[in-house]
């Protein structure tokens, strides 16, 4: 199986990075400055490149104190809700606009408008509209996800090859059957590709969104907090945690994808 090879490669790459980092940290210990200027004051005892031992100590503390686990739970929950809400809304809208414009063959300048509108810029607006609570955080993720998945679904539907629709129509399929049995499966790869991008984007968004009403526990605030002290080991561990969570989400998405596209040749 290709899977086993890929897993082995990933492990080798990970170990290599870890070893290289360890070597760099050992070399840097005692050589890198211990005191840095933070713009307004000096900070002593910064570990610019913490060794594996220091990271392990910090990690153990974050785990034991349950700070890390609580943060992961809170942030993951927000991302998950935002992803579901955003994907459902985005995909439904994209299917609708795609199918409608397919028939009326409208030009779609608004697609371009949305593609490049930075959804993170909505943050201040959402704070005003929805307050400092959960709602604005989840909705910000949902909006980001919806824009991406809307485009994916819209373009997926528009890209359905004419021949399949013609063949289905001449076999007697009405519009609804054509939509269900031709358009949906044919657009699926494009929709799914956009969901995968959205998963990564949702995590980027949450880290920023958690700066509104910043409070623990949350991964975003953990990162921000460790930056102000600064505590490099905490930062690195929080970053690695976000990275690992993105990987897990992506893996889940890929599993879903593999199940839904058994009909496609194995190219990915």
């Amino acid at each position: 199986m290709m899977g086993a090879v890929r897993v082995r490669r990933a492990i080798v790459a990970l170990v290599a990075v870890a070893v290289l980092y360890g070597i760099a940290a050992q070399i840097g210990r005692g050589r890198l400055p211990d005191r840095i200027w933070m713009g307004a004051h000096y900070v002593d005892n910064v570990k610019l490149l913490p060794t594996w031992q220091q990271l392990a100590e910090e990690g153990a503390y974050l785990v034991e104190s349950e700070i890390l686990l609580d943060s992961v739970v809170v942030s993951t929950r927000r991302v998950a809700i935002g992803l579901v809400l955003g994907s459902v809304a985005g995909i439904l809208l994209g299917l609708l606009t795609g199918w409608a414009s397919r028939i009326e063959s409208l030009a779609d300048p608004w697609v371009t408008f949305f593609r490049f509108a930075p959804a993170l810029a909505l943050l201040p607006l959402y704070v005003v509209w929805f307050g400092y609570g959960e709602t604005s955080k989840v909705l910000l993720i949902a909006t980001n996800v919806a824009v991406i998945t809307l485009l994916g679904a819209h373009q997926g539907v528009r890209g359905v090859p004419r021949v399949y629709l013609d063949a289905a129509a001449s076999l007697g399929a009405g519009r609804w059957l054509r939509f269900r049995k031709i358009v949906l499966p044919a657009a699926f790869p494009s929709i799914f590709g956009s969901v995968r991008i959205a998963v990564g984007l949702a995590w980027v968004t949450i880290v920023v969104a958690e700066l509104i009403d910043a409070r623990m526990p949350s991964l975003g605030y953990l990162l921000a907090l460790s930056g102000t002290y600064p505590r490099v080991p905490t930062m690195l561990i929080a970053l690695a945690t976000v990275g690992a969570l993105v990987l897990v989400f992506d893996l889940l998405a890929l599993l879903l994808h593999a199940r839904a596209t058994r009909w496609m040749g194995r190219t990915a």
Partner: protein
Amino acid sequence: MTATLSPPALEAEDVSYTYSGPPPTHALQNLTLRVRDNEFLAVLGPVGCGKTTLLRIFAGFLRPTSGKVRCAGSGIDGPGWQRGYVLQEQAIFPWMTVRENVEFGLLAKGVEPSAREAVSDELIKLIGLTAFEAAYPKDLSAGMSKMVEVVRVLATDPSILLLDEPFGALDAQTRARMQDALARLWEQRRKTVLFVTHDVEEALYLADRIVVLSERPGKLKAQFEVAVPRPRSVNTRFSAGFLALKREIWDATGR
């Protein structure tokens, strides 16, 4: 004969078709054509002579710019299963298994699963793909896929088949095999077939009658009755009558 009493299965009367430009393309010009009931008619012509346009008009995807088309005496208004249409391009649905592809027309008609299965069983067996019934098209050869497309339109039992160079993209050997399969199919099920091709031998091997179209804009250039006895086989391809007719058509197509 009875053919003169009942209206022809398919009829094009003085049909012209122009694709709006710029520049406008005159694909067909004043074409009159009648396909008799249960006749296998091959339309032969060079690439770009409007063969596909003619078929798409009969299939209901295009309306003639002028002239009339009729199916069994009544006008054609949009696509429908009564005229089974096999497109020139590969149009097997890649996300459906062979069986699901074959059953699609029946699904559209609202036929129950058990009845659908009975029909698809028979058709899949007919083309020798029983072992592949659960396979996806990615695991089929191009020839197999095309045969699935052909029997897919047969599932709803249309009285008319419109075939647009179904074997155009296949190698010579596979092509000959597919032609045999189609000939057997037609001998068993007698349908009105309008078969578009640019291959003289293919037209001769399969058809009862051949019409030759001119280069664009497509006009009727010549007609031939193919009085070659059925069932036809490999030997038919080398019989004197077959070869003489082939020569005649070659000359008529002006190559």
